[in-house]
Each structure stands twice: as C-alpha cells, then as structure tokens.
C-alpha cells in the first residue's frame, strides 16, 4: 500500500492503495466516481475512458502509481453543469439506449474534438473505434459528434 496524490477533476485527492491498482478502480471504489465504467479490464472496449492531461486513455490498465502530476478528468468533471457541447449533443440526439458505454464514448469524443474541431466521418470512426456500444447507437454517436463540432466552432 502507498499514499498516492492525485489531481482529479481539478481537486487534489489522496488515496492509500496498492500502487498497481488501475485508476479505474481507484476512481470507482476509493473516490466514489462511478461514471467511469468497467467493461473489459483489458483496454478493448473503451467504457473506462478518462482524460489524462486532456488526452483520452483507458483507465482499466493504467496503474495509479504512474499518474504523477497529470490531471485526471472523468465524466463527472467534464463540465460543471453537465452542459459540455458534447453532453448537450448527446441529449439532443437522445443517443443512449442502455447508456452504460456512453460516458466512455463521450470522453473519447471530447478528446477528439479538442484535437480536431471538425473531424470527417472517417476521422470520427478512427478515433471512436476503441469504444464498443453493444446497443448499436453508433449512427447517433456520430451525428451527435457532428452536432457538437458545429456548436463549438
């Protein structure tokens, strides 16, 4: 066990955990931020996507010991009132079915739009290919990303 200091959603946090614990489980079980989801544990489904200094990463295979000073952003910290343009676009298109993967989808989409404010269809597909939606809402996700891109520009 080791005391590890983290910067999560702009707040300093301190956890006493096995340093190998994946960030996913630290967020969910030690910091009670359960918006970041467990789906596969091997970085194949994208449900656990968070931002590390603004870059989308899979938190399920990321040991908490390697984070250091980097800023973690989770779905809970994406916007103050849940009104990030991507979140708004998701609501406008009524994207979710079961909804379980959507936090990860949104985190991947926001990271994409930050890097590329007007992505092509192909660029969206490439950036989002690591996020599985078992309900098959892919068409709406793409439409919502395009709406968010328009809203931002």
């Amino acid at each position: 066990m080791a005391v590890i200091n983290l910067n999560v959603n702009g707040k300093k946090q301190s956890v006493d955990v096995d340093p190998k614990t994946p960030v996913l489980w630290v967020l969910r079980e030690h910091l009670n931020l359960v918006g970041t989801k467990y789906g596969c544990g091997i970085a194949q489904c994208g449900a656990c996507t968070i931002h590390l200094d603004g870059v989308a990463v899979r938190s399920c295979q990321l040991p908490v010991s390697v984070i250091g000073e980097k800023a973690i952003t989770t779905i809970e910290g994406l916007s103050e009132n849940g009104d990030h343009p991507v979140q708004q676009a998701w609501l406008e298109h009524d994207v979710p079915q079961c909804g379980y993967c959507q936090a990860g989808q949104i985190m991947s989409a926001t990271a994409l739009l930050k890097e590329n404010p007007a992505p092509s269809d192909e660029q969206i597909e490439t950036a989002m290919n690591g996020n599985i939606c078992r309900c098959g809402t892919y068409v709406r996700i793409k439409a919502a990303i395009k709406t968010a891109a328009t809203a931002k520009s």
Partner: protein
Amino acid sequence: MLSFSWLAGCKPAAEEALALPKEWFELNGYLKIGENGLVTIMSPNPEIGQNVKTSMPMLVAEELDVDWKNVIVEQAPLNTTVFTRQLAGGSQSISQGWKSLRMAGATARQMLREAAAKTWQVPVEEITTEASMLYHKASSKSASYGEMASAAAKIEVPKEVELKNNSDFKIIGTSRNNVDGKKIVTGQPLYGLDYRAEGMLVAMIAHPPAFGMKLKSVDDSQARTMPGIKDVFTIKSYPEDYAQQWCDVSSFPELVVVVGNTTWEVMNARKALKLEWEQFQDHEISSSTFWGTTVKVKVPGGLENSSQHAKLMTDYAAKNAKVVRKDGNPEAVFKKAAKVIERSYSAPFLAHNTMEPMNFFAHVTEEKAELVGPIQTPEFMEKSVAARLNLPLEKIDIQMTRQGGGFGRRLYGHYLVEAAVISQKIKAPVKLIYTREDDMSFGVYRPAYHALYRAALDADNNLIAFHVKAGGIPESPLFADRFPAGAVDNYLAEEWTAPSNISVGAFRAPASNFIAGAEQSFLDEVAEAAEKDPIQFRLDLLDRTLNKPVGEKNDYEAKRLAGVLELVRSKANWGQDMPNVHRGVSAYFCHDSYVAHVIDLVVENGKPRVEKVHCAVDCGIVVNPIAAINLVEGGSVDGIGHAMYSGLTFTNGTPDQTNFNKYRLIRHSEAPKAIDVHFVPSTVDPTGLGEPPFPPVMGALANALYKATGKRHYQQPYLGEGITLG
C-alpha cells in the same frame, strides 16, 4: 405515411420545471402528485436499454392528462401486489402494460375530477382536464392537479374508467427524450455495478475452466493472506434434490468465492487460488419451466469441442428428424421437380456480452434479504432466492437498477442467488462482481444452430415444395408455422436437438436470431433460381397465404408482412439502379411485429461498406418515436454485427474467447453509415420492438454481400468466410 423527424422534436430536456414538493399524495401504486403539481410515475419494468423507463410512464401520463415536463420517473422495486409482469423479455413490456398503465393514469385523473366536482359542488361529468389542470367551464373554475391532489388521494379508486380514443393522444406518439439521459451523460450512479452500501464487501467467484467440469480441490492458503481479503469459501450452486427454475441456470455445481474490501484486491487474491478440477459424469437435473411444470433434464458429461459440434450438426441434418408440420406431399413433389435448390446454414454459440457484466448486491440477515442490481426477471428470481435462503417470499426485497444491457442474459439470475448465498454466509452486505472473462466463460449462451433448406420449382419456376430441417445444440430454432408456411402447397418442417452440457438460453429474439437470416438468405437464392425479383417473389407467396392459405395454422398476418415489404420497397426506391450500390432484402415476423430491411452496400478498394440500411417496421402504435427509431437502428447494427463478427467456440469445454480481444463485436467503422427507419401507420395496439429489428437484417446483409461480391454466405459469422466490412 408517417415519417418522424426525430431531431425536430427532441430538444434537450428542459430543466425540471418544478422543485420537489413538500408533500406527496399517492393516488395509486403507479403515481403520486405533489402539492405543487409535480407528478412521480413509477416505471414498473426492468430497464435494459429498451427505453421502458420513459415509454411506460408515458402511457400513465397520457391518461392522467399531465404535462410531461412536470413528470419525474422512478424505477419501481419488485412489488407483485401493485404491478403485474415486471419482466423484460419477449418484447412485451409495452404490449402487456398498454392497458394497465393507461388505467393507472385514467383512474387517477378520475379521482382528481371527482375531487374537483366535490369541492366546486358541480357534476363530475362537467369537469375537463388538460395538461395538469382541472376545469369547470360553466362556472369558470379551474385548479391545478397539485391543488386537488390532497382531496383526490382520499377518493376511492374507481373500478371502471374510460380510456382515451387514440385520436386524442397528446403524449403517446410524440418523441420524449430518455428520462435518465442527463444522468447518463454526466456519469451519475445508475447501474448495479455503481451501487454501494455502508460496510459493503466485494465478492468474486471462481468457476470451472470448462463446461463438463467440477471442483475437485481448493488450496486457498495464499489467497487468504492477501491484503484486504476477508474470506474464501465454496458454495453449492443448488441444494440436493432441488428443482431449479428455468431462469436459475448454472452449469457448475460448486463455486469458489473470494470476499474482500475492494475489487482489485479480490481480483488478485482470486488469481492466487490453487484450484483443481475434474470432469463430471452424465447426470440428471430437475428444472421447472417458464410455465411452472417440473421436467427432468439430462446433462451429458464430457468436454465439448466446436469442431465436433460442426460434424454433429451435419450428421443430424443428414438424418430424418421430428416432423413438426407437413402440408401436401412434399416428398413426392420434390421427386418430380424441375429444379431443386438445397442449402445449409449454421451459426455459432453467442455470448450476450452486455456491456455491464453480471453483478448483484445482497444484504441477507435472519430477518430479510435485500437485493439490488440488474435483473430481467425479478419476480421469478425472488422465488429462487427465497427457496435457496429458506426465507418466505415477503422477506425478499428486490430493487432494480438501470441495466447496462440485457439481450436476454439477465433473464437468468443465478448470479443473484450467488450474491444472496455469499451475503448470508459472511453475514455482511456484499456486491458480487463478474469480470468480463467470468461473464463470457460462465454464460447462458445463444445455442449453436443449423438449418437445411430445400425448395422445389416446377418448369414454370413456381415454388411447389419447401422443406426446412433445423436443429441446434441443444435447442431447435424452428418455427414451423411461420412464413413461408401457408404459402406453399407441399411443405415439410422437421427439427432435431443434440444434447450438450453448455448452458444456453434466450438471446435477443431467441431462435429467430438465426432462422430469419438463414430463411431469408435461402429465399433470395430461390427467387434468383426462379428468375424473380426477390421482393416480388415474397409478395407473390404472401398473396397466396392471404387469399388461399395452406394449412390450418399460420402464425403471421400475411397482409402485415407484405405491408413492410411494400413500404421498404417504396422507401428504398427498390429497382432503381445506382452505380456501385449492391442491395439485399429481407422480411421477418416475430414478437407480433413485422420488419423488412434493405441494405445498400458500396464496394471501395474491394471492401464492402454498409452505406445505408432502409428499414420498415409494423409494430402497431408507436409510443415514443425517438426511442423506437433508436431501438430499430440499434437492432439493425446489432444484427449486422453478430452476423459478421461474433461467435463463441469451445476447445475441450473451454470457451476460446473470453474477452473483446478475441470475441468480436461490431465497432464504429463497421457500422452502417446511415439507417432510415419507417413505421407503418397503425391503430393496432403496440406489439414488440426490442427484438424484431434484430433477426431479419442478417438475411439482408447476406443477400447484399452476394450482390456485391458474387459469393453467398452460409456460415455465421461471415468474417470466417473471409469477408469484412469497412
């Protein structure tokens, strides 16, 4: 023709118009009204992504005549005294709740009207309502629902009330966004895996690595000493001489349990277990069916292999099977046919792979059992838990969380029993968690299927005989009375089953999820052999069923099946040649609904891409268009995905795929670029929608692929036949 512009009607939900009231007044078990007019509607059924948590309360709100923006929705717990059929299965939530939910709203509205009539001393017949307001026109009196709620709650619940005419609907048929939308996109706790309680521990199980095996020995000496670990023990899946319910499925007689403080610690300790396994022998179990009758089921010993399954299926297909339906004299007609087409189709086991793996919270004390989590069959599982814990039913409390997918997997709630037994044993609140690997290797899978089809054409290319022989390991996918039964004079339907110790169960549109694709692919080949347009070929057959049906019992309405074919033909501009667009069609009936698909494939750099899916649906009245379209889109993507990519294979009883690195699910780049959904305008009471759009699209895909590449596909997943989408 109805065509919903879902973007127009779906602005982001307005912030809640009203604050929480000081007091709630319960008018019946489905709803309560606050003094300020806010209404809480209970959503009775499990929400697995099919949108019932929005669309079922819409039915209540419609008859209550309430302003939807003043409605908040709560998930009801299991409560068999107030609610009926709290189940997510068979695409029946809306159809079965169509009357009861509307009655709940209508009786409450009547109580409000009676309260107003009493207060104003006027006849109740003269009280009208609109958008949460009560009016008496003659005296110009009005009051809000909130103002009358207290008085209404004291009125006796009326026995009989009139329901609205369909033409008066204000909410039903209009698009209403997901009531949990905001919580979903902001990551609020909603799912079973998110649930936590004071003092809660985490549990995981270790199960045999292969179907056909059982526990021999446990060495937990290392695991017990690891950080955060509370206990390691074994539990029996069933007591001795126990009739398990149909929904209480476990292939493994005994499980090893690790309990600790956190998921990570428990995961690590589980890896440190030294477990030995051995094969079990042939044996028999008692199982009660959905309808409650107890049957003996033989469980064969042995470690099964997919290669053996493939041979087994072709062997069975070569033998005579059980005749389920026979019209005319198919054997004789096949002998004299001008042309006979014979094809075989197969599909593998599938794992449901809900994105949220199986999990459940349990807190069992001597007084009661409190259970919280994702389950499609709470009412059935309550019985299993009661029997297993030896507690009366009334001491079992089941609450349902929002569920990260269902697809049939959560009809089978043995994980809920496991959680309860673990909590009882360690005398603490506990959440049982399956990892993805547990979920995929301890599944209740879609069976492996096989179907052999034969068709006989006469010299004029008329279909004169049709034969289907279908079977599976260990269940048959045959629906003997569905199309083209009824349309062919000489018809033979046979089925067979082969035993297996691999646990199977319902998977989105059970059996249809294979047979639709097989049958619709085959009909495409028959139409081609008959030199007919594939849509016209089907319509001609349906015309026969409609006007002069063969046989006494045909499950489908030929007119409605023809209706979706005609609609998709028109919407897709079928018959119009477009450069580099290759099209396939299919149509299928299941869960009382009718769906037809046309898929447009475009080939670029030698690779086919699904450019567009055109889909026509007849599911009766559409309650919530924006969500209905979403379900049809999702079902279409799901069908394309499973036909193309997914499959679970076994080597010596062990699943070869246990996570998404090997088990393929469709991804963004492989999904259709566009999906157009069209509903047949209807005044028929709603029928199923969660399942019907899933099966037929597989046939449309196979038929479009043939047009694009010249190659027919017979074995799912088609990926194994050397094709990918991009």
